[in-house]
């Protein structure tokens, strides 16, 4: 049973006398109960805006949201804000990139953790405090009783991120969205936090939507991965397949750009040309075409559809790489009805 279905989600920012900016341009994906899904892309690809839209956290003015987001059968986008507030924190929870700016600097950690418990579980006083201490202990914060009385600035970066995770999982949400949860952290602390998130997802059965730019982070953690480029999903795959045979030239290019710690040294990196600014509109063709080494005239003749290439593997490219010789053409003309953007 799909827990979350995102169907043709689009987010456009409109300003006074400004050209509207389409940050998310028809993103579709689904998540099952207990699934760990990775949303990967570089800055500007729309991954954070997608997560904000799922949580209903986008401002109402100057933003146009299109498409549908169903969470457990409820349409999140059309929910009145009161119902949405009931859902946030109890069913849906989110962890942000920068733990210092997501915590209130003038409120002790304890009050911030118990706030969710008070709001959603009706817990008060001693019971709430004890539960908060339990939660801090659960996420690996030593001496939780003392930490509850401390302020965010007294905690280290890793501890703050743990405190945020404790707040997010306080009401045992069914879906946890983590937006670059380890980007601000050092690598040894990152390993601790990833370990904790993976363990929480497994033991509590929480679905985890992991949003990151780091392919290494999703390689160890996620069951399935969606790769985003310029506001659209360009490749969908299980993690093993994605890294073994990336079909979209952008995914392949990303993998070729990262220096690997275990690769033989002296191996040259093969960067992607240009930068994220060199895109064309999806309506005119493939947004990645100006940076692509494999592009043909066909790439500029219209929006490429998401096509299926093997079990659970889809890509949005007319000229994919790393295809098995047999399956290359057999599946190509078959646009995936639910995943694609048939307009």
């Amino acid at each position, binding site marked *: 049973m799909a827990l979350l279905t995102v169907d043709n989600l689009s987010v456009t920012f409109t300003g006074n006398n400004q050209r509207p900016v389409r940050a998310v341009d028809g993103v579709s994906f689904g998540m099952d109960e207990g699934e760990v899904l990775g949303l990967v892309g570089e800055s500007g690809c729309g991954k954070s805006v997608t997560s904000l839209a799922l949580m209903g956290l986008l401002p109402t003015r100057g933003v146009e949201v299109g498409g549908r987001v169903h969470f457990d059968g409820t349409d999140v986008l059309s929910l009145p804000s009161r119902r949405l507030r009931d859902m946030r924190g109890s069913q849906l929870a989110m962890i942000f990139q920068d733990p210092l700016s997501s915590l209130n600097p003038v409120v002790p950690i304890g009050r911030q953790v118990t706030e969710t418990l008070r709001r959603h579980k009706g817990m008060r006083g001693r019971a709430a405090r004890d539960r908060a201490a339990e939660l801090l202990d659960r996420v690996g914060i030593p001496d939780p009783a003392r930490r509850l009385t401390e302020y965010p600035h007294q905690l280290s970066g890793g501890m703050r991120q743990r405190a945020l995770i404790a707040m997010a999982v306080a009401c045992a949400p069914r879906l946890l969205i983590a937006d670059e949860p380890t980007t601000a952290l050092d690598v040894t602390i990152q390993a601790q936090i990833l370990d904790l998130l993976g363990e929480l997802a497994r033991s509590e059965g929480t679905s985890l939507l992991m949003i990151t730019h780091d392919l290494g982070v999703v390689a160890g953690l996620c069951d399935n991965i969606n790769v985003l480029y310029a506001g659209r999903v360009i490749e969908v795959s299980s993690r093993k397949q994605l890294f073994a045979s990336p079909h979209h030239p952008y995914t392949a290019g990303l993998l070729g750009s990262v*220096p*690997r710690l275990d690769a033989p040294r002296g191996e040259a990196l093969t*960067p992607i040309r240009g930068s994220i600014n060199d895109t064309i509109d999806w309506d005119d063709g493939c947004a990645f075409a100006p940076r692509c080494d494999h592009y043909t005239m066909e790439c500029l003749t219209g929006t490429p559809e998401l096509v299926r290439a093997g079990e659970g593997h889809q890509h949005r490219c007319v000229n994919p790489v790393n295809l098995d010789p047999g399956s290359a053409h057999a599946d190509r003309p078959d646009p995936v009805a639910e995943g694609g953007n048939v307009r």
Partner: protein
Amino acid sequence: MSVLELEDLKVHFPIRSGVVFDRTVGHVHAVDGVSLSVETGSTYGLVGESGCGKTTLGRAVLRLVDITSGHVRFEGTDLAGLSGEEMRRRRSRLQMVFQDPLGSLDPRQNVESILAEGLEVHGIGQSRADRRTKIVDTLERVGLASNALSRYPHEFSGGQRQRIGIARALVLEPDVIICDEPVSALDVSVQAQVLNLLEELQSAFGLTYLVIAHDLAVVRHISDVIGVMYLGGLVEEAGADELYADPMHPYTKALLSAVPIPDPVVEDAREQILIPGDLPSPSSPPSGCRFHTRCPWRQPERCDTERPELREVAPGHRVACHYAEEIRAGELRSRSADVAAGTPPPA
């Protein structure tokens, strides 16, 4: 031959307190006795987590922060003892590329003016036209067209800005470039472009790099020798391949095992050494071995009281750990292994 030599370099920052009387109440031991040497034409990579003192070390080499004690020898001259004016003249030979390209470029200066400033200060080039030719040449080397001259930093993308930062260093024809996190602010696909550019420039001009970064994979990719820093001190130094194949210091082992690798097969098979806790405060560093508070192989007594010297265990491989050989031989069991096996650690 080594072009740059650091000997017992220390940089301590005073912690001041008091409203009426300005008193020094303690010191942050940002860099605390680092000795290393960088060979001509090679790349020395310095890795460590935030707060380990790697950036301060880089700035101390250029005397951008005051050196508390120790020596920095550049081609035999001790930079630590030079006067401000003498140091200023040397800086054309020693340049720096900073982490944040937008923050390190003046938003109100166009590219030509940014690059010409160094040339003017050091009296390079006869005339304005002469300097412009040099600037255009340099821009071309870093992959920017000459129409960039009259444009301003905000008009460029992150990767292009970092190219301007590199051009600013390169235009003075330095011998040594200190790169402080040269790619950490850039997107992955652009990172590779800048890394390749740095390598290209090195082989074209015979540059020596001191690369400071937190990303082990990046450092390993471009460095010949890598030094690992922890809390102000060097804990291990070895050739890039050797360090990866045979890390001997427990901190290096943990650091290497924590770096995620974009390959699920490797990720699944890998054994992680999770080190507990956070970096202790550099204003009151732990006694003895600085890493003993987090070390899975910590031994009673000696690790707590005696600070290990950086000693050579193999040619070109230096480690600051009392028990490096025993750990490698498997004679000491790690606490994390004990925990995993379900047996309590020995008292």
